[in-house]
């Protein structure tokens, strides 16, 4: 047992040492669906993602296969809170790193089509397996009064140049949350509410088939702006906001086709309406709704639905349809199923497809992901996945490829 304890400590220590840089403040919508609670139950931001409040922190402390006591550190199981100064200050952090092959396979001159697994293809050279620092993001939240929260974070990895076009290195918000019957207001550098906020930025419902690895709404996307959220009853919620479009334009201009095509700083608008009926007799939590996000010539509509049951799992579906400059059109679909055999072990499978077109460009992408979220120790998640992607893009030099690979994400959080 001692050797196992030492091994676990080495693994945890190694992960801490390796996870050094980033990308996104993540959100797990399945948690809201299975628990039947809004994201704000566990997160500082009513939108979810990022800093966890005391309930979220405490919940994660005991979502684990092994407690600190199992590895000889029982004192750490006795932590009482993530708050300081009598609950006026909350701290937190996310560190993520991913082992994956980035890029496209390239033609191998020596390969023969007969050796390919898929008919009509030729074996290619796999991109190198690399360790990608994704996120090193400390959070600080101050709660000066019961109706005011001030929260911010900085993604330290962006200092090293690891930044997606349009990704904001920082976010900061003032949240006014007084009477629950009145709208909440968020002001600052924040992410507009668009569809479901997933924790995987490669999802095609936020990208297009031309650049599936570089979403139009990138990881860590945020703009200066304000958003009001009204949640007067448990089953109804509506958000509306106005923002600058600086980062959106940067993400758009870096694409094969620029759907925003705004030549000067302008505004972006968002709105979402959600219904969240719960069927207590069946133990089912559901939500469905739609959102609009637009700026310049871009219009992005997302529609989504989900159903979940505690201790069993969830099913989510989402579709997006966007139009923009240059006859830009993208339609994407996503279905995601999760099964929770243990509270610390979640099996997820999802399928996605997107078709895009713009002037002179026609592309289609399909992606399948099968993975496990394994909460090994308190604050430590391992996420092994198998990802299979098929891309056909008439505008790219590598016209069509299939890449299937194993990936492993390590996630330390507090």
């Amino acid at each position, binding site marked *: 047992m001692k050797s196992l304890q030492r091994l676990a400590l080495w693994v945890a220590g190694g992960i801490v040492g390796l996870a050094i*840089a980033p990308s996104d403040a993540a959100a797990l919508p399945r948690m809201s669906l299975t628990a039947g609670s809004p994201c704000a139950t566990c997160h500082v931001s009513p939108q979810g993602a990022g800093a966890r409040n*005391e309930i979220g922190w405490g919940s994660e*402390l*005991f979502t684990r*296969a*092994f*407690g600190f*006591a199992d590895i000889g550190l029982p004192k750490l*199981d006795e932590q*009482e*809170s993530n708050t300081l100064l*009598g*609950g006026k200050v909350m701290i937190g952090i996310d560190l993520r790193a991913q082992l994956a092959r*980035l*890029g*496209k*396979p*390239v*033609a191998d*001159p020596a390969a023969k089509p007969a050796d390919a*697994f898929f008919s*009509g*293809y*030729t*074996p*290619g050279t*796999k*991109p*190198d397996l690399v*360790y*990608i*620092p994704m996120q090193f993001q400390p959070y600080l939240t101050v709660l000066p009064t019961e109706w005011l929260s001030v929260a911010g974070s900085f993604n330290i990895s962006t200092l090293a*140049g*690891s*930044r*997606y*076009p349009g990704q904001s290195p920082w976010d900061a918000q003032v949240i006014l949350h007084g009477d629950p019957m009145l709208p909440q207001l968020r002001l600052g550098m924040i992410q507009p509410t668009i569809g479901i906020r997933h924790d995987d930025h490669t999802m095609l419902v936020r990208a297009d088939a031309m650049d599936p*690895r*570089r979403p139009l709404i990138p990881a860590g996307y945020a703009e200066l702006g304000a958003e009001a959220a009204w949640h007067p009853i448990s089953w109804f919620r509506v958000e509306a906001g106005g923002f600058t479009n600086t980062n959106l334009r940067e993400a758009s201009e*870096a694409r094969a086709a620029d759907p925003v095509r705004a030549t000067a700083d302008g505004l972006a608008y968002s709105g979402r309406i959600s219904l969240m009926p719960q069927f207590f007799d069946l133990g089912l939590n559901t939500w469905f709704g739609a959102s609009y996000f637009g700026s310049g010539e871009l219009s992005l509509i997302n529609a989504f639905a989900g159903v979940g049951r505690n201790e069993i799992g969830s099913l989510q579906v989402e579709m997006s349809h966007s139009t923009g400059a240059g006859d830009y059109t993208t339609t994407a679909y996503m279905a995601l199923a999760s099964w929770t*055999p*243990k509270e*610390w*072990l979640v099996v997820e499978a999802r399928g996605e497809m997107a078709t895009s077109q713009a002037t002179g460009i026609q592309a289609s992408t399909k992606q399948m992901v*099968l993975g*496990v979220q*394994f909460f090994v120790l308190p604050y430590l998640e*391992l996420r*092994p*996945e198998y990802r*299979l992607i098929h891309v056909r893009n008439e505008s790219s*030099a590598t*016209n*069509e*490829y*299939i*890449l*299937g*690979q*194993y990936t492993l994400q390590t996630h330390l959080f507090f």
Partner: protein
Amino acid sequence: MSKRIPSPVDHSRRGFLRRLCVGAGGVAGTAALAGCEVAEVRQSGEVLASYDFDIADHADLGTVGGMVSIDAGVQPLLLIRVADAEFAALARICTHQACEMLPGSLGKWDKDKKQLTCLCHNSVFDQAGKYLTGPGGVANLASFPVSFDATTGKGSIDLGGTA
């Protein structure tokens, strides 16, 4: 505000071993279900041994620092005029996240530093394709030898060799 949250987790040795087995089984099961890695392409064009070019066909190569995009059969390349009689031929797909470094778009050649930058995430490579800076852990770009006759303005990229 700071109440102790009771642990719902069974801390017994049997519980520990049970969780160990289930967790390891889940990870192993996922890997087993996943099948094997696959990387296959279907491309237009053919595999060439070499690619001949004439700078008269590429106005941007008329001056030092010029860079053009060339599809040499199945190889997507950047051809860069590094000096009067010196050219570099580098793979056009960035090794970081596969962005296509098209001249005037995501590919930027600094003729003074003799460095290629992928504007997707600022990965920087030298004229031999060697990765210099940018997001961590990025491989070098494939680089191919280029011969050039300054008197005729014609040259050739050796696609079978490594520069």
